[in-house]
């Protein structure tokens, strides 16, 4: 019974393709990542393009963390401790994350958090 609660569930859709209408926000742009370039430089073009949106999502995560710990200590902890963790990450991931932090201007600890969020989220 929990699987049939229209309008939150619906019968099988058809003719949704090609994507259009209210459930289709838009296409996705393509970028090339050159694995022959140094890890630190691989994401520069992409992050230069997406810097504003990345800063935006990190601010939303910061706001969420501060909602739990208003003193800001949680974010402080992330900014102080996670940079040390980047040294322990296997190659090329540590260097790539440094490069993203350089280009975006987002603190290194917060870029590390973004990249290990799957493991952290289980908390």
């Amino acid at each position, binding site marked *: 019974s929990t699987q049939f609660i229209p309008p939150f569930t619906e019968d099988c859709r058809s003719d949704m393709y090609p994507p259009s209408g209210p459930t289709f926000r838009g296409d996705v742009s*393509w970028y090339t*990542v050159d694995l022959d370039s140094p890890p630190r430089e691989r994401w520069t073009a992409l992050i230069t393009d997406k810097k504003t949106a990345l800063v935006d999502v990190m601010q939303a995560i910061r706001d969420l963390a501060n909602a739990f710990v208003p003193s800001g200590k949680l974010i402080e902890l992330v900014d102080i401790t996670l940079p040390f963790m980047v040294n322990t990450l296997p190659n090329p991931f540590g260097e790539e994350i440094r490069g993203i932090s350089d280009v975006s201007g987002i603190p290194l600890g917060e870029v590390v958090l973004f990249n290990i969020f799957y493991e952290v989220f289980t908390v």
Partner: protein
Amino acid sequence: CTSVVAEDDKGNLLHGRNLDFGLFMGWDIKNKSWIISEKLKPLVVNLDFKRNNQTVFKSTNFAGYVGMLTGIKPHMFSLTMNERFSLDGGYIGILEWILGKRDGMWMSFLTRSVLENAKSYEDAKALLAQTKLLAPAYFILGGNQTGQGCIVTRSRLLSIDILEIDLKLGRWYVLETNYDHWKEPLFLDDRRTPAMKCMNRTTQANISLKTMYDVLSTKPVLNKLTTYTTLMQVSEGKLKSYIRDCPSPCMPW
């Protein structure tokens, strides 16, 4: 998340997924949406990873995230990853990592190295099944030959189960949301039943990337957490993705 690998009646493997993320991470009352899910949508990109100017693999990703959740190694295999909940979860892996026990791998770094380095479907499956992880996960893998489609259910240390496509048993697709396939999903979050109902109604004769998109567009498989849909076909090396919306009324998860 919902991931599905299906074999059509010509033996092609088709792989589709909805990437859902942002549960309980802040609800925007005015817009009736999850804050983080909406903030992630502008970051969705398709990536073509090249070496010697040759495509090694392609992926749909969030800019700033160096691991992989969705990808294809053209003409070889396709791979998606869905979250698996377990008390023996990632926080234990992180604690062990901090304490210096670093023989496990971070989940999305494993998927990235499999996409980058695995030489075949079987090679990929072995790496995903046997590599020690920091957090549990589901890996959904499609290949380039008939019968090559599976769900690898992983704890941090073990491969608990591998469910494969088996045409002799009438299993022409495998489908994973976020619950072990041998258990009932949480009754408040059963996206599996509606998804499988639509796959069964589509039938193997009619399955295509187009009809797979229909299944992934059916509520609650499409929900407020869905950021993008990706469709992949290994035999053609094709990856296509679309940023999604789920206007109200729509299931929050």
